[in-house]
């Protein structure tokens, strides 16, 4: 089964490429079918946990956690492909886009099933490189560069950790190799730090978040959902490996403990907390909807990191579930924005408005997505955030809890902003004629919407898998009984919450319908302090939505200038070095070459 999936993936990449060369639209449909087949194939793997497959030097194995992550990734990829047929004419190299899209899919799925460290690294690099080449096809080439450099930092650190691990332990199998460090805390700390670095850069944890808004904001509209909903979650998997498979809590066992968390792990969690606060504050400021959602990914990455690093009964389950919830919600939100961008040609919130009167279904998709993202019941995001809150308050990690609360309430602010500025408010006359998104795009988006809703009402479907992961790790599993999700600090029955909410809604609906019908008036017939205004754009409140609040922190320093200065210095150094080797005068180059030859000869002789 596993072999078949892998072979199918590789074959389909070539197939999609050739097909797209002939007719890009067919290639786009091919990506849809391939990702669907991948989704079905991987979902069948659920029963065959423990199965291993080897291809020359690549070793794969089916694990529950790998299955869980691959399902998330495949769902996001699958729903994003519904948009592909409509975007082929906007891409410069549609054939390359389709092939790279599938290649990154194959890379990520391979990563989650990797059995040994080298396979892990190769799959990781495949996913990173292919996605980088796709980002480059978007609005900005610089964004792809920043993305690449940031990934390279993480990759190099991870490669170092992997080589060190293989060298020290003498084995490449992930589980066996990491156990070795139980006995050597000092080396273990180094490997842990280097290994998790790639996860941090990928998740966009502060201070490695700079690539995220750039890449998400300027990637092709169809790829942003995959970046945010899918590829960022690779970082979560690395975080999982480095804390759950790597015996981090044992390695740091002799460190200072803060409420049961070793100091190095606590420091990483604090970074997650900073990411939540920072991502929230920056998201509130953005004017571009996609950049706003990208910063929200930074904040949600913080939740996931904190949850996974806790490695306990509640917050760990919450963190893993949040990977799914955020992937679904974020992909849906990005796709809704892509649909709007398809029709209007912009994602700038100050230029849009009133889209609900033209694209009501897209509005509903976005609404459900943000309800989930903000963690409001009865959508999925609530359950995972609730579990993380329960875990944090149970342990008494008050600063992290403060950051989590800030990110949670702050998310109301930033998710409401596009809702209000893009979909609600006044409809500009230039958008008077636009139509609802195509049915195929709507199907993709509505699939995610239905998932968000289902995850909220019956979260235990997913929590059952997570409980199994917890059992495999040897920690207390999350308690689920029927529709009740229980923790040590109390339980919640999401089905009941949904029912009660529906009951309240129904009561008020009856009240509303019993009362006399309202008269429909135009949007411009609104209270304007009795002044006559005939320009809808002037009545639309979209610029600097939270101006008084933004003003409180707009002067705060940003890390971006620091990176810019660093890159400038690096560039200068490179140019300086370049003058040594490639000077206009040939004699200098000849000198270096001769020196090199002498060195090689001398060294070789020895």
């Amino acid at each position, binding site marked *: 089964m596993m072999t078949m999936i892998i072979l199918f993936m590789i074959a389909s990449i070539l197939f999609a490429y050739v097909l797209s060369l002939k007719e890009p639209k067919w290639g786009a449909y091919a990506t849809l079918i391939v990702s669907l087949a991948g989704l079905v194939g991987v979902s069948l793997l659920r029963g065959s946990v423990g199965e291993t497959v080897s291809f020359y030097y690549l070793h794969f194995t089916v694990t529950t956690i790998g299955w869980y992550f691959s399902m998330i990734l495949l769902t996001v990829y699958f729903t994003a492909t519904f948009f592909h047929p409509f975007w082929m004419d906007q891409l410069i190299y549609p054939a390359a886009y389709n092939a790279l899209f599938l290649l990154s899919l194959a890379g990520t799925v391979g990563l989650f099933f990797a059995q040994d460290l080298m396979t892990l690294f190769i799959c990781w690099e495949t996913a990173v490189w292919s996605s980088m080449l796709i980002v480059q096809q978007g609005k900005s080439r610089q964004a792809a560069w920043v993305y690449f450099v940031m990934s390279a930092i993480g990759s190099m650190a991870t490669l170092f950790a992997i080589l060190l691990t293989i060298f020290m332990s003498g084995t490449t199998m992930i589980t066996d190799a990491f156990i070795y460090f139980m006995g050597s805390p000092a080396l273990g700390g180094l490997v842990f730090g280097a290994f998790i670095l790639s996860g941090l850069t990928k998740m966009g944890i502060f201070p490695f978040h700079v690539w995220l808004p750039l890449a998400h904001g300027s990637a092709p509209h169809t790829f942003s959902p995959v970046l945010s909903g899918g590829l960022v979650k690779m970082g979560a998997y690395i975080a999982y490996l480095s804390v759950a498979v790597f015996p981090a809590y044992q390695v740091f066992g002799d460190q200072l403990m803060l409420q049961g968390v070793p100091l190095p792990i606590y420091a990483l969690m604090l970074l997650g907390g900073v990411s939540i606060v920072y991502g929230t504050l920056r998201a509130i400021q953005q004017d571009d909807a996609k950049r706003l959602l990208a910063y929200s990914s930074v904040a949600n990455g913080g939740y996931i990191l904190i949850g996974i690093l806790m490695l306990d009964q509640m917050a760990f389950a919450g963190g893993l579930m949040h990977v799914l919830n955020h992937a679904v919600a974020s992909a849906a939100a990005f796709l809704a924005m892509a649909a709007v961008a398809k029709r209007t040609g912009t994602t700038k919130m100050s230029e849009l408005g009133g889209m609900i009167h033209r694209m009501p279904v897209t509005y509903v998709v976005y609404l459900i997505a943000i309800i989930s993202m903000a963690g409001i*019941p009865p959508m999925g995001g609530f359950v995972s955030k609730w579990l993380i809150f329960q875990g944090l308050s149970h342990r008494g990690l*008050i600063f992290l809890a403060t950051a989590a609360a800030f990110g949670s309430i702050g998310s*109301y602010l930033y998710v409401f902003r596009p809702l209000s500025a893009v979909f609600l408010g006044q409809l500009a006359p230039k958008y008077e004629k636009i139509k609802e998104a195509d049915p195929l795009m709507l199907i993709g988006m509505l699939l995610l919407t239905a998932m968000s809703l289902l995850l909220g009402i019956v979260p235990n479907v997913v929590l059952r898998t997570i409980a199994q992961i917890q059992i495999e790790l040897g920690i207390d599993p999350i308690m689920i009984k029927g529709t009740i999700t229980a923790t040590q*600090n109390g339980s919640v*029955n999401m089905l009941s919450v949904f029912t009660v909410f529906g*009951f309240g*809604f129904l009561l008020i609906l009856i009240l509303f319908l019993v009362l006399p019908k*309202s008269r429909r008036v135009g*949007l411009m017939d609104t209270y304007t302090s009795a002044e006559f205004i005939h320009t809808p754009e002037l009545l639309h409140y979209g610029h600097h939505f939270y101006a*008084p609040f933004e003003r409180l922190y707009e002067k705060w320093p940003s890390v971006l200038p620091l990176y810019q200065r660093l890159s400038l210095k690096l560039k200068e150094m490179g140019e300086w070095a370049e003058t040594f080797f490639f000077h206009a005068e040939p004699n200098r180059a000849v000198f270096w070459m001769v020196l090199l030859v002498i060195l090689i000869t001398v060294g070789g002789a020895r």
Partner: protein
Amino acid sequence: MTLMSFVYGFLAILGAFVFQTSLTGINRKVTARLQKRRGPKWYQQFIDIFKAFSKSSITHGWVYDFGAIMALGGIAATVIFIPVAGFQSFPGLDNIFVISYVLAVGMLGMAMSAAGSGNPWASIGVSRALTNMLAYDIPFMVIVFTLIYQHQTGSVSELAALQQGAGIWGWNAFQLPLGGLVAVIALFGMLGKKPFDSFIAPAEIASGPMVEYGGKQLGMMFTLHELMTFIEVSLILNLFFGGGETLWVYLLKYAVLYTFTNIVSGVMPRFKIDQAVTFFYKVPLGLALVQGLLVIFGGWGY
């Protein structure tokens, strides 16, 4: 979950509405007396709400109506979750986070409906309301985290029950005095009482989110306001003032607490929204963190 639960839930909504609306009317009289006026009749608030329902109304599109229904529906559902003197229509649903997040459904609905009217005042009001929420909720949440850590339970009714039996000194407001202070300040922000009422400033932004509501939608918003007040005061009452052993004790405590906030806000000016944020992040958040650290690392309250 039986049919009776729904009946009790409906009665809870109705009771909360009647009680809080009467109390609002009485408090309008109290405010009037503070200002040396005679004030309206005690049932004036009922007349106002029913009058709004009796008038004709307009709509600005489906989201304007849908948001209003979602707002009032969400808030009405939240009332069902609130344990009153230990009684709940649906036992086991009173987790503090559930209540505070279900409350957000109603707020989101209201914000959606208001912004859907296309009026810029409404959007400004919503932006202020959300900013205000970000300000008061963080100190409050920190105290809630502290309470959950201390008592190892997140259930509101259990937290209320734990305070009973030891008299007035068993209340969290006296056990954790800093936290109690923070909670009461946060209550002012929750209720939108002065000095934190800049999001409905009538003369400044034409009553903010409410600007376009008239007729039945206005009546629904007034009802929503009464129910939301009930939820918020009940939450603080249950968490910090020991709830109530019997219904009458509960209602009496409730009336005292609400009247207290009303009297204090009657003599307050209004903060600008950025001043409110700065205030909440300086004083109450600081106090809340100090209280939390004392409980978690200092062992206070054990």
